[in-house]
């Protein structure tokens, strides 16, 4: 009898728990993204490094003609860049595809992995298809949703690494728990572009939690360009005058793009590689220049855009206004 009562209590508790959980899910207006990882990406050599997010395509009409596929792609890219991949800027991808003859976004779906690899020179691509969009406000019901299929394809093998087909939905209505939320959500939902962007954002946040992140794999391999030394002709407490020339010599890794800056006041003044690993450049102080205690900072940048920086600390660039008169 005692056990029977205990069992009955447990059963009631279980039912209540299931009810609460279901209730929560329904009210949340959003299910979690079901991402299917097709290939085990645990081995470092398997993980793609460079990734291009191809133009997303659109299957049907969109509310108020908002280009949801573009909006979603940009939003997805912004969140995807947090993960440990080297992502190619969207403009670069579009430029390369157009240069290769792509006139409409849909054409990209027909490109073979080999062709895409030739055009984009990346390890993997992400393809996205917006299958359905909705934005509805009426009565006590408001809903914005985006249904899309997104997949990552390894261009080295042609295999699909992961894929998902998900519908992200933000809505309120009779199932919303409070009157205020219904009103507020309806007000938000009327702004179509904003509502669609918010939905795309929640879709992106959800999917990013599931996409395999190789950040740990690449972290060990990171190395910034090395600057061994930086020399300038600046002397302690020296005041510069117009037409004075600041010389900068920098010694470091060879074959890189060298530049120097004067504090944050002026940057990217080019340095020329006069011999392997030796960079040299100068700046002539102008009449209009006014600098108060700026440190000279040398920069060497590699092809991946990573920069090594080093400050020259034995002298500061100082051009006082009084020296101009």
């Amino acid at each position, binding site marked *: 009898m005692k056990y029977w009562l205990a069992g009955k209590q447990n059963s009631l508790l279980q039912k209540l728990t299931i009810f*609460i959980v279901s209730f929560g899910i329904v009210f949340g207006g959003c299910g979690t993204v079901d991402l299917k990882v097709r290939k085990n990406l645990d081995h470092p050599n398997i993980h793609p490094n460079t990734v291009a997010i191809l133009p997303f395509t659109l299957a049907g009409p969109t509310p108020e003609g908002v280009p949801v596929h573009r909006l979603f792609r940009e939003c997805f890219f912004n969140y995807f*860049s947090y993960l*440990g991949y080297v992502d190619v800027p969207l403009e670069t991808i579009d430029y390369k595809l157009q240069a290769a003859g792509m006139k409409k976004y849909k054409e990209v779906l027909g490109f073979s992995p080999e062709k895409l690899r030739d055009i984009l020179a990346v390890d993997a691509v992400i393809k996205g298809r917006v299958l359905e969009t909705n934005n509805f406000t009426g009565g006590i019901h408001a809903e914005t949703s985006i249904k899309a299929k997104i997949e990552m394809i390894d261009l080295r093998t042609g295999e699909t690494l992961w894929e998902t087909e998900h519908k992200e939905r933000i809505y309120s209505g009779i199932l919303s728990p409070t009157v205020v939320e219904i009103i507020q959500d309806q007000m938000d939902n009327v702004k179509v572009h904003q509502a669609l962007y918010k939905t795309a954002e929640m879709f992106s946040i959800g999917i990013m939690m599931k996409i395999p992140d190789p950040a740990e794999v690449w972290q060990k391999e*990171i190395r910034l360009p090395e600057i061994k030394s930086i020399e300038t002709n600046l002397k302690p407490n020296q005041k510069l005058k117009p037409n004075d020339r600041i010389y900068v010599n920098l010694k470091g890794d060879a074959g890189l793009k060298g530049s120097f800056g004067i504090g944050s*006041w002026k940057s990217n003044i080019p340095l020329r590689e006069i011999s392997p690993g030796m960079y040299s450049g100068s700046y002539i102080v102008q009449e209009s220049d006014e600098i108060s205690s700026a440190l000279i900072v040398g920069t060497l940048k590699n092809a991946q855009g990573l920069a090594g920086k080093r400050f020259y600390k034995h002298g500061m660039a100082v051009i006082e206004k009084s020296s101009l008169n």
Partner: protein
Amino acid sequence: MALSVSACATDLQTRVAGNLTALSKNQTVAILPVETSDPGQKEMAKMFRQGLYANLKQSKFHLLERYVIDGLLKQNKLTDPSTLLAINPMQFGEILGVDAIVFSRINKVERSYFVLHSSIELSVSVQMVDTRSGEILWRAEQTEQDFSGIGKIPTGITTALFAPIQFVTNKFNLSRMTSNMVDKLTVLVKHPNEADRENQFEKPVIAKNATNELKKIEDLQQLKAEWQEAMILDEEAELSDSSENLESNKESLVEITTKPDSNSVKKNIMQARSLVQERKRVESEMPPLSPKKEAKIPVPINLSQATTVEPIAVIESKEARPITRSHVGTSAKQLTSRKTQLYTIQVGAYKTKAHARKLEQSLKRKGYDVFITRNGKNIYRVQVDRFESKEDAIKLAHRIQIKEKLKNFVTRFSGV
């Protein structure tokens, strides 16, 4: 009424610097790991950093990849986000190779549940600092509150009970709130041109760490400038000494070693020592910007005279021969009394004797035969060893330069 009671509250204070507009795609910004005030806020910290990334991707500067930042911080053993704010921004400039950094901290993540009412309160602080100048480009503090319960007029008795539970337990709400928070927080930094006057710093604000660092550099440069001046005076004095010597052809050399026998001199030395202590503290506190360790001894500023110089009016001895190490112990007077021209290596010249002493002691500990002389202009010269052969002196001078990283030159030994 319902709306006024229930609309989620935002308290946002944000300011940008005029120089923020100067950041472009050519400048790189790093969003550092987010500091938390409680271990339970890690998930929120991750969401917040991700949100910052996604939002600042729309700004006009370039963001350094998150895995690059974390990898480089790990390589430099900077894995605790709570220690990052204490580090000088310039150091981050060299560690990460970026032009600006974003520090952020989760101040509060509070979920409250009171049967018919529940609430979530989030509070964050963010600061963007230019690594090249230490200037604060953007500073913001934001508190976001949202709740569910009777204040929002439940649609029924069931929802009155369950809405508060659902609100605080649903992960989606925290995620949504964080996302909304970052959206509002980053509006100004994405469009700094649109900032009202009240949202702009009146004048450039430099981060405290950077101010300290720049002050130290300036102090050090001031000191070096003084040394440089002293060095020039020393050379001038040497020139005049040698010409006087040539003219009068004096056989004995004047002993000019300082003897702090008077009280006033002692007092001066005490003052100078305290100055040295202060300078030393400044130097040792300066964060190492590169793994290579600098020599800790004060470096005399004779950079432009780094190469060896020709001694003026050298009287070559017919018996000139190198003084071997066994001569090191020979008394200076004995040496000078031989009337042969001797050479020594000058490694420093200071107006303050304490500075000279510091260098002298440092080199003595390393086994050098080092001594201090004072010239007619009251400049304390730190010199190493004596040689009959100039070549031998040059050899040791090179060794000192390489081994001790001390710029020096060979000069005539004028006695101690």
